[in-house]
């Protein structure tokens, strides 16, 4: 039986460790892949805001280091803040920065960049048809950059939205709406990222459990953000610390023939000065958890 790949999102520790040490420790901790977060770059910094050569050279260096370590950059994370209503300045920024994110993803040799769709926290509880139209408009604007760089735009399964303190369920948390959104994208450069924590935190809104979400989205899922919670908040806990039914989740992945990395998007910032030990501990635990089909 083929060994399952395990990976980790670097959003909680790369800023602290720097990208080079970050890659080294991830590899040393037993991970096969990494989810490289691009949200730390902005249009005014020296990389995204500098020359093309500097941009190319920066991401090529990261790619080379990962290659040397035999660590696969299996996905990147683009923007969480995407189109909002009535703010063309912000939306232009989303286009400009996402173009850079997709270019960086291509240089890194990664096939996919996760870009959040528009969300109800910004758009409110409006007509679902309008949300679909606005979401399509945004992705239509980004598709040329994806095609130029031959990189997939990945939709991500959503969870709870907050509006004036009121918690409700985002439209793009329901599998039928995610599939409709996916089908509306006129490109082959598209995929879906299953975020287990998002799905689980809105089960009380009749969103199916994570395992059924996987079955509903099937082979369109090629990347993951795996983490746990208690069904109330998006806590990004280690799997097993919440109440997701992980053995069922692993069975569903097998049923749909999932071949991607089991990429974990966990909170790590609290390890502080014990980050290296914390990542090693997590790597060892997650390897056993994945090999144990969701159990240790």
């Amino acid at each position, binding site marked *: 039986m083929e060994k399952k790949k395990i990976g980790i999102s670097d959003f909680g520790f790369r800023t602290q460790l720097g990208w080079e040490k970050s890659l080294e420790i991830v590899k040393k901790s037993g991970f096969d892949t990494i989810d490289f977060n691009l949200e730390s770059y902005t249009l005014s910094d020296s990389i995204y805001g500098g020359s093309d050569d500097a941009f190319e050279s920066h991401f090529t260096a990261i790619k080379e280091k990962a290659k040397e370590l035999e660590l696969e950059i299996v996905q990147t994370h683009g923007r969480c803040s995407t189109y909002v209503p009535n703010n063309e300045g912000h939306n232009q920024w989303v286009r400009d920065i996402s173009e850079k994110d997709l270019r960086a993803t291509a240089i890194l040799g990664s096939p996919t960049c996760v870009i959040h769709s528009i969300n109800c926290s910004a758009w409110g509880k409006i007509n679902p048809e309008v949300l679909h139209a606005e979401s399509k408009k945004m992705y239509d604007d980004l598709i040329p950059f994806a095609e130029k760089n031959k990189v997939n735009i990945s939709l991500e399964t959503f969870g709870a939205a907050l509006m004036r303190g009121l918690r409700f369920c985002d439209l793009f948390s329901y599998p039928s709406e995610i599939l409709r959104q996916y089908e509306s994208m006129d490109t082959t450069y598209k995929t879906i990222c299953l975020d287990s924590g998002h799905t689980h935190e809105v089960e009380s809104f009749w969103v199916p459990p994570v395992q059924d979400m996987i079955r509903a989205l099937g082979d369109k899922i090629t990347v993951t953000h795996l983490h746990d919670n208690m069904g109330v*908040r998006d*806590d990004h806990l280690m799997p097993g*610390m919440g109440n997701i039914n992980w053995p069922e989740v692993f069975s569903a992945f097998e049923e749909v023939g999932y071949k991607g990395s089991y990429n974990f998007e966990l*909170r790590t910032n609290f390890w502080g*000065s014990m980050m290296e030990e*914390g990542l090693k501990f997590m790597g*060892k635990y997650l390897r056993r958890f994945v090999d144990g089909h969701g159990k*240790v």
Partner: protein
Amino acid sequence: MLGWEKSLELCKKYGFDTVDFNLECYNLDDEIYGGSEDAFVSHFSAIKEKARELELEIAQTHGRCIGSHPTDEKHNAWLRRVSEKDLYATSILGAPSCVIHGASCNLWGRRTPSELIDGCHRMYRDFIPAAEKYKVNIALETFGLTQIRGEKLCDIITYPEEMKKQHDMLDTKYKTLCFDTGHTHHAGDYWVKSVAETAKLFGKDLTLTHLHDNTGTRDDHLIPGMGNINWCELFDAFDEIGYKGSYNFEISLYYWGSFIEDALDFLGRYLRRFVDGHGKV
């Protein structure tokens, strides 16, 4: 999962100085609590000896989590009998205190505060003879949220002022307070004081702890740092009141499964640095 002997060995091996020995796994119909007094004494003496040999202090025990019932006298009689055994076991183990949960809204429902305060007081008062006989403190534990038919509500003894009164009302010197940080923190939306303010209010009456974290919504028993308790403030408060007890962590461990030994190894190192770092690593 591990058995008491291996449990004690692992706690010591991974750098813990003290252990909080849970008694809830014993019941009146098992061979220890339900058997002869000789068997009972021999069982807990063996545990005490093992801890002594390891130089591991049994700093506290945990008695029953279920408190008294407003009308079910059969339940209350059972509670008195089993708590007497818990206090006796605590004494044999050489631990100074046994944590016993108070009367909670989960059995009492929505009552007036005075009914709840009185009910809770009567429950603890009934335990005093056993506590005095065995020279062991009854530890009152700070509560959090309760659910009645799916509806969340805040227990009266979640408010530290009420807990302190409850403690002061008990007419014995064999009493103390156990501060459960997770309980207090997840009830923050109900105007319960912050963990640091609670520790300050308890002052010198606070001798025991159940330290764990959460995000303010559920009693998740997370590793400190994983939730949003302000630990640095709490450690300042502990210093301010001259807290001398053990920093005892009550973290969920069941999910580590076969990984438990690796987890204790890592947690032992993490918690040592966390405590030495005054709530930071």
